[in-house]
């Protein structure tokens, strides 16, 4: 890979051992993907919950944090994905003091590195969205797919070590979705119905994800007559990335790199369209239906809720009382939690018996241990992403609209 003088100096250790580790890591990954050089990035975003870090990861971060200040500080704005635990609500969720200790150690290490603890997977709605063409090192699949597709930014999925490396060097290897040729549509889906709510937008993402099933596929979606909302595309993209490992899609006339169908395929003839009907959405939702079952926990998360979603949950639940045997968890970012507190939304949800957790996203929060400690099995959510991933942690997940989720939390069974 071609390196300039500054990059050569980093590699030689002249800017300290942290930046030397970082650029060596980037060269190993870059060579694997035939990157010609490194590209400068505007922000880095680190996924590093304590469950995935493990003891080894936390000790490694602490060793970095012990380096001299000039060597250890990140050199571009570097923010964080949801954490494993919210200090204000962890006891109510029966997370342990040991988990809280690991969380505190990790936060101290990140703060010593100059990382901003935003603790969010909706930074594009709440922190600072990228602009079209801006190269980024984002560490959450839902963030990457939204920013690549809806905003025209350029990022690969950057795991925690790679995102931190990008924070330290202000660069990332130029491969994958940093490169024009990889951003061209490769599959064509024609929508013949419109999803009716966020859970169905997620279901649509799940269907397109299963049919795409590769990081290197770029689905193109046609058939929409009016643009979806930010929250609808948030759920669509999060599920598409979760079910299919997809990092970029185009919607001609809506997303910025695809003014037309022809543009989505870079002037080439589009492949035959795969039609998606209302029956496909219903079929997907039927896989995750469990009407009549007792529900242990209702979760709104994955991705964290926007202010508008928080308002909707609050207005649907205000004045009602949750079933005594059902837990309701609403996960949002710290910034939205402050707003929700100020606007009375948190109060409405918690007065009904719900828990508003800030800076976490449920599945990264020791989900298996929470299930065991609380006796949870049946989980209901309006997030298609969450039903895809949570079964691996011993839950029996079900999918329904936000309205049905709340009615079920009140009834104690899935209605």
């Amino acid at each position, binding site marked *: 890979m071609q390196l300039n003088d500054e990059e050569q100096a980093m590699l030689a250790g002249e800017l300290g051992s942290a930046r030397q580790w970082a650029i060596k890591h980037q060269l190993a990954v870059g060579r694997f993907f035939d990157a010609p050089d490194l590209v400068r990035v505007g922000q880095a975003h680190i996924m590093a919950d304590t469950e995935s870090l493990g003891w080894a990861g936390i000790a490694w971060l602490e060793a970095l944090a012990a380096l001299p200040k000039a060597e250890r500080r990140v050199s571009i704005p570097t923010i964080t994905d949801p954490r494993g635990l919210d200090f204000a609500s962890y006891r109510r969720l029966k997370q342990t003091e040991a988990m809280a200790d690991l969380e505190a150690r990790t936060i101290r290490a990140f703060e010593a590195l100059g990382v901003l603890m935003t603790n969010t997977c909706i930074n594009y709605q709440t922190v600072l969205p990228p602009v079209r063409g801006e190269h980024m090192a984002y560490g959450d699949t839902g963030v990457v797919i939204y920013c690549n597709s809806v905003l025209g930014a350029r990022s690969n999925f950057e795991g925690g*070590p790679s995102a931190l490396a990008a924070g330290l060097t202000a660069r990332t290897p130029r491969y994958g979705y940093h490169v024009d040729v990889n951003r061209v549509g490769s599959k064509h889906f024609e929508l013949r119905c419109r999803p009716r709510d966020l859970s169905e937008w997620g279901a649509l993402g799940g269907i397109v994800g299963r049919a795409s099933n590769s*990081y290197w596929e770029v689905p193109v979606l046609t058939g929409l007559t009016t643009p979806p909302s930010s929250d609808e595309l948030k759920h669509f993209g999060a599920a598409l990335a979760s079910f299919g490992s997809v990092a970029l899609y185009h919607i001609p006339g809506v997303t910025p790199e695809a003014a037309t169908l022809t543009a989505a395929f870079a002037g080439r003839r589009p492949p035959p369209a795969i039609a998606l009907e209302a029956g496909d959405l219903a079929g997907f939702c039927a896989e995750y239906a469990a009407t009549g079952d007792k529900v242990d926990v209702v979760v709104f998360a994955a991705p964290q809720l926007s202010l508008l979603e928080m308002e909707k949950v609050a207005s649907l639940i205000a004045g009602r009382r949750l079933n005594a045997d059902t837990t309701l968890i609403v996960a949002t970012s710290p910034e939205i939690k402050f707003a929700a507190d100020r606007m009375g939304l948190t109060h409405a949800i918690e007065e009904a018996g719900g828990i508003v957790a800030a800076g976490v996203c449920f599945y990264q929060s020791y989900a298996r241990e929470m299930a065991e400690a609380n006796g949870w099995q049946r989980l209901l959510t309006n997030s298609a992403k969450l039903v895809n991933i949570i079964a691996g942690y011993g839950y029996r997940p079900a999918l329904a609209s936000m309205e049905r989720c709340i009615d079920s939390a009140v009834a104690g069974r899935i209605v």
Partner: protein
Amino acid sequence: MVVVLKCHRGIGPTVEGAALVAADNFSTRYDLDRSKGIFCRPGHSLYGQSYHDKILVLVTAKGGVASAWMLNEMKASGLVPKAIVFDRSNPILAQGAAFADLALVDRFEAGCPTTLIATGDRLRIEPDRGLVTILNRSA
């Protein structure tokens, strides 16, 4: 003459070990019980089998970004595959292998490695040279 398979230049050290092969995918977070060193997701082709010290030969990586940290944690815990061989890796597993210094190769000239290699084959993985040698088979 042993069988030599050419692949793309990979990541990590040269290693030798026994292959564990499946035409299935791989996620450290959702497929593995990392405390026991086994595949634990019902429905995975290798359900119930130990991955410790094996050279895993699978189609591709799935799941979220957590694998980038988890391979390192698995190595520190002592229950870890010796190497991973994919038809095509995604960025997260490549980043995770680089962080953990675990051998990873993909993109074979002769096609998908799950059809070229059988469970129990004795393999030498040379990531720097882009070579996988099946030591127990003759060409």
